[in-house]
């Protein structure tokens, strides 16, 4: 890989050692937590409080997750083609592939 990965950059120095946290919000029961953004906080407990104040001022959430940004592992965007190539062409994984049974009820 030739580029630096910005999320891994030196975020720890921010705000007298207040690290960066990623915030995930569940907007209502039955839905998944969705990434909302990030914030700085000295520790996990404060990160949850800050997330509550910053990302749910308008009843946006019923539950919050916070996770240290540096603890998130991501797939390599440079290797995107290889990473996500395999499912392509395997359209037999999708119901739409099976056309002959079309019109049969409750199938």
């Amino acid at each position, binding site marked *: 890989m030739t580029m630096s990965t910005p999320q891994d950059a030196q975020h720890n120095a921010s705000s007298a050692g207040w690290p960066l946290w990623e915030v995930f919000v569940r907007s209502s029961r039955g839905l998944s937590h*969705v990434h*909302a953004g990030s*914030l700085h906080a000295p520790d996990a407990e*404060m990160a949850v*409080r*800050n997330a509550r104040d910053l990302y749910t001022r308008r009843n946006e959430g019923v539950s919050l997750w916070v996770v240290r940004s540096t603890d998130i592992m991501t797939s390599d965007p440079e290797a995107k083609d290889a990473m996500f190539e395999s499912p392509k062409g395997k359209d037999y994984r999708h119901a739409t592939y099976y056309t002959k049974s079309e019109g049969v009820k409750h199938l």
Partner: protein
Amino acid sequence: MSTSTGTDHSLDSFGDATASATRVTPGNALRPEDIALQDTAPATEAIAQYALRLGDDALIYAQRNAHWVSRGPELEEDIALGNITLDQLGHARSFLTYAGKKWGKTEDDLAYWREEEEFTSLHLVEQPNGDFAETTVRGLFLAIYQHLLYTRLLESSDRTLAAISAKALKEVDYHLEHAELWTLRLGQGTEESARRMRRALEKLWPYVEELFQDEPLYEELEGVAPRPSSLREEWDARLADILERAGLAVPEVPYAMCFGRRGEHSEHLGYILAEMQVLARKHPGATW
């Protein structure tokens, strides 16, 4: 201009990617506007006077805390202090609206057109913000107090006071957590933060006794409101627990003689009111 409906250029398409995490709903809660619309006024003068006290405490506290907006020690904290201020202002508006119904006055009549000696606030809420340690200690004292008080008011025979307290209690619960989190962090953080916390405790302790003074008014509030003195024991216990975990202690300083409830205020209140009321009083009869 609206940002939610498209006009041309499809300028306004937000996409679904963040829809779930940005969903906005107004929520249901008792608002001052709802109380204004209700038919019920306080049944007695004493109940109205009592609501006035709760309203004045929350109002002056909010007015003080509001000064932190745009001055917080970190942006995240700026927002947290803003939330607490907004909550307290909301409680003030509800209590004042309710009190005012006894006298045909609105929340604004009471906030902007009373004189200093007509205010009933505690000296504690009138104290200057000081540094973040002082604001934290003042917040801690008050949050424990309001938490105990509003919990007891859930059982009030006055249904409006109980309803306002129920809404306020949920918010004060958060204020208490906030104050506790910061007390622990500042108490056990650095040498400097612990020193500032000790100084803040010494500065504000004199105004604690007033919180628990029973007035003759309470003779007429049987079943409506708890006597302040009845909250003291649990307040002390809760405070001691938090201070102990923070490596701090109750300071040994004498209590100040304070009678805010009968209109005898700290030297600060005059300035607070001068600032708060200046614009409204410049335009008598105007609406805003």
